[in-house]
């Protein structure tokens, strides 16, 4: 895991996490910032930053896979959607929306912490500001 010594000192302060090309699409890239693990996920639509704690039992969400999910459907039908916009916890498989941290389908209370990540030029920037995402 990449360790980045310089962490934003204020909630709204942004620091660079490195060039965009270092963040492959569709994977959680775990980084350690000042002793705290975050996950950066680049999708075809944007970039997201997650805390490393599943609200179910504290599983390491940054070791999860990026996937889509099945939309609520009629019996015996599958409707796959949100491909690349969902992260699945490696412990119990709970799914969360990358953009909001919300549990897919309301399966579990609580959210995965979501922070702010932005792409400026060819570089990824991060802030501890909660709940915001950009595309």
């Amino acid at each position: 895991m990449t360790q980045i010594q310089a962490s934003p000192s204020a909630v709204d302060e942004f620091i660079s996490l490195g060039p965009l090309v270092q963040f492959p699409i569709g994977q959680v890239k775990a980084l350690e910032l000042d002793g705290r693990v975050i996950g950066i996920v680049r999708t075809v639509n944007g970039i997201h930053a997650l805390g490393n704690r599943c609200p179910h039992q504290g599983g390491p969400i940054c070791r999860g896979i990026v996937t889509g999910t099945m939309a609520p459907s009629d019996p015996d039908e599958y409707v796959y959607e949100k491909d690349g916009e969902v992260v699945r916890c490696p412990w119990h498989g709970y799914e969360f929306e990358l953009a909001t941290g919300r549990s897919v389908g309301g399966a579990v209370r609580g959210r995965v912490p979501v922070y702010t990540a932005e792409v400026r030029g060819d570089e990824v920037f991060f802030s501890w500001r909660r709940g915001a995402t950009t595309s």
Partner: protein
Amino acid sequence: MIVDCDRHVAVGDYAELFTHMPQSWQKHFERDEFVGSVRDAASHIKLTDRFGDAVRVGSEACAEVDLALAVPHQGLTINGWADQVAAKTFITALNSWSIQNWEAYSAGRSAILVSPYDPEWSARVITEAVSRSDRYSAVALPLSSTLLGANSFDRIYRAATEADLPVVVHFSGVEGHYLGAPPLSGGVHTTAFARATLMPHLAESSITSLCFGGTFEKFPGLRVLFSGFGFAWLPSLLWRLDREWRTFRHDVPWVKQPPSEYVLDSVWLSTWPVGEAAAEWPSLFTSERLRSRVVFGSHDPFDGDTVDAIRDTLGESADAVLGHGSPVLARSLGAVK
């Protein structure tokens, strides 16, 4: 109001059914190979000396209740019959007999026996029965080795829902023993009492199938009563259903809310044998919504629980439980004294 959702009604001799079937079928059945084999099959599931006693009128048995649903339990054994054509004739005769049997008593209601092996025929039986008599208050669906959440049962559920009748599931006693009836896990037990001990797992299996199969999404008005399977196991089942759904919701996206919600809206369990809850009732059934799933079912005349036994075991909840069957048998309530 006291509503007993689990009475039993039985012919003393199978020959009593002959007048309730066409003459050609009478001649087919009128021999010891049939009468004897059915009688012997009943002996295989005999748990008490009282099993098989005729319960013809029921007015004495039902003296203390306002409404009693009787299951003609001998018909449930068709889940282990090899000849399912004959089985349909048999339960048709039982349906006719049982309604006549209970006519003398205003609180008595009967369940319509149907066949799990012919859902289309069963749907017609339900529709025709309710058009003939308002004394039918439920649909009795014997368990087969096809789980209840299978699409093949949709016709039965649709007909039951349209008739505003609950589906009653009660073991026949040949489960885990006869081919065609659902097996019990682990293997074939040699005794009826061993199989009876394990019957609750059939109800757990069926509820799980109904929830994850999406049956309650397809039929929001469906009411299902599991009768005779006990009930103390329900809280742990609901917890496990919800836990697995949270993890694997994407595998059953048609299950649009925690499975326990469907059960708490649409499934009931009868009290027999109430003794199993003697210690756990206050600590496990902690909410009114959970307690409301448990309805009085005496299981009379087979070592049944009396109203007093319910009161002794369930304490201050007992009076509510004795009346919890009202929404299950809602169609019949208007005609009750």
